[in-house]
């Protein structure tokens, strides 16, 4: 339902993405992988409207969204998290999620308690264990990550973009996150995960797109990918032929 057609992005002549095109099916978990500087984050910024592509188009349910502002895109149903955990540090968990809820349901100036109920549902969903009145700045790293997801899904999106969601987490923690992601996906949410941690990606995602130096080098199921020589090159250093040349 989200489709990228030959999207390119260059910063002052330096090309970050070159003619990348792929499609996301409803209800799948798509993994975007590639070494550092492959242009993953640029891609997510393009999809969420923080950057404009230099050329090419991004189509969401048949509508071009590459020119829209971030907050419009959120309302249209694409929500994201950030590479560095980014939450409202001086607000408590409750308010973080509450703010996330606001744009999606436009009711008047007066408070409506069903919003509150939603907040607590979401807290349960992502299983945040701290009290909802804890300030975000006091949270441990994994809770932060959960809170990010919570805030992102609060806007009840149809597509969720997770940017290196497990970076800096222990294996157990990342497995927990992985569970949450699968659960959300079962609930009908389409998800794009960006990672350079291969293992996690392979476990969680159903389909994988591999980027290198801003170009899509291949696409397929985790198994195919893990067998694909190009990918191995990218990850385990280019082979001897380069040294010979």
């Amino acid at each position, binding site marked *: 339902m989200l489709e990228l057609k030959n999207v390119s992005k260059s910063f002052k002549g330096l090309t970050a993405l070159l003619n990348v095109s792929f499609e996301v099916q409803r209800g799948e978990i798509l993994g975007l992988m590639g070494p550092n500087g492959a242009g993953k984050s640029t891609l997510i910024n393009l999809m*969420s409207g*923080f950057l404009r592509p230099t050329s090419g188009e991004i189509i969401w349910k048949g509508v071009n969204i590459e020119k829209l*502002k*971030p*907050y419009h895109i*959120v*309302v249209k149903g694409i*929500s*994201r998290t*950030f590479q560095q955990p*980014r*939450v*409202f*540090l*001086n*607000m408590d968990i*409750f*308010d973080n999620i*509450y*703010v*996330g809820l*606001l*744009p*999606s349901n436009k009711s008047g*100036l*007066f*408070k409506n*308690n069903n*919003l*509150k109920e939603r907040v*607590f549902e979401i807290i349960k969903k992502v299983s945040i264990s701290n*009290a*909802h*009145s804890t300030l975000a700045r006091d949270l441990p790293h994994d809770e932060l990550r959960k809170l990010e997801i919570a*805030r992102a899904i*609060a*806007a009840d999106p149809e597509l969720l973009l997770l940017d290196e969601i497990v970076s800096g987490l222990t294996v157990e923690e990342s497995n927990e996150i992985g569970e949450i992601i699968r659960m959300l996906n079962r609930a009908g949410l389409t998800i794009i995960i960006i990672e350079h941690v291969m293992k996690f990606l392979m476990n969680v995602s159903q389909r994988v797109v591999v980027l290198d130096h801003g170009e899509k080098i291949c696409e397929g199921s985790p198994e195919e990918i893990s067998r694909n020589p190009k990918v191995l090159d990218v990850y385990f250093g280019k082979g001897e032929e380069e040294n010979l040349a």
Partner: protein
Amino acid sequence: MEKHTLAKNEIMATGSILLVLIYVVFFTLFIIIFPIICNNKFLLHIAILANIFALVAISWDLLFGFVGILNLAPAVFYGAGAYTVGFLTKYCHIHPIGGLIIAGCVGLLLSLLLGLPSLRLRGAYYAMATLAFSAVLNTLALGMPNITGGEEGIIGIPSLISGTEWNFYFSSYLVLTCVLALKYMLSTKYGKKLTSIREDEILSQAAGIDTSKYKVIASTIGGVIAGLAGGYSCYYFNNVAPEVFSIAFTFSIITITVTGGIGTIIGPVIGSYLLTFANENLYIIGQYRLLVYSGIIIFVILFSPTGIIGAVKKLKRN
């Protein structure tokens, strides 16, 4: 976890209304009683000054404390309001209430005028630009005596209300209304959005908040309040002089807000009362007055950077 939930729900449901009620009752009584317990026009006069400063400080707090627009020219809205009233009275002999309203409108227009560049200019540049803007208005007010009355300003403007007590009641209730209205607005979802913009603009956008829209809204509200304050001060002092545009005024407002606590509508009011009374009562120590005054400010900044409210919060935590 469950009981947390319930507790939070109760607070969210009843808390704000309860709070508002407490505020209303407490302050209404306080204001009514105050002139009676101290039958001293001088103190009332200072209280009125404090109220006027408080209004402007609140409006600035809304700008900087809630949407992070570093506008270094609260004096502009205030002064514009004051001069509007001045001109209207001098050239059109308008009814005071009308003058007050128009002053507010002028504040609104100006805040739009200054609010829009804030979406283009960044941080320090915007700050300095606004600073320069107030300097320009100051010089214009000085430099065109035929229109603005020059250094002496516009003199002999009739009072809005006669009698110090009544002025005190009027200004105090003006402040009270503003504080309550803003407090309420901030406890609603709009307030949450504003706060989130202050916290992290990028993230707010990612959370689907049209940041620039809310910035403009906030700055217009601020502009109106400051404009009103200016207009009222012009009626109260029966004159308006170029000082209203002075950098000194701007910084006294900023000082008040910082001392009281940024981003807490109530903080500026406290700061205003504290500093105004300090300033006016330090005449006892004669020539060292300003030294002590600035000493107080330095002390507050160094030892409680979050202002008085911040200090109170700390006390509460420990």
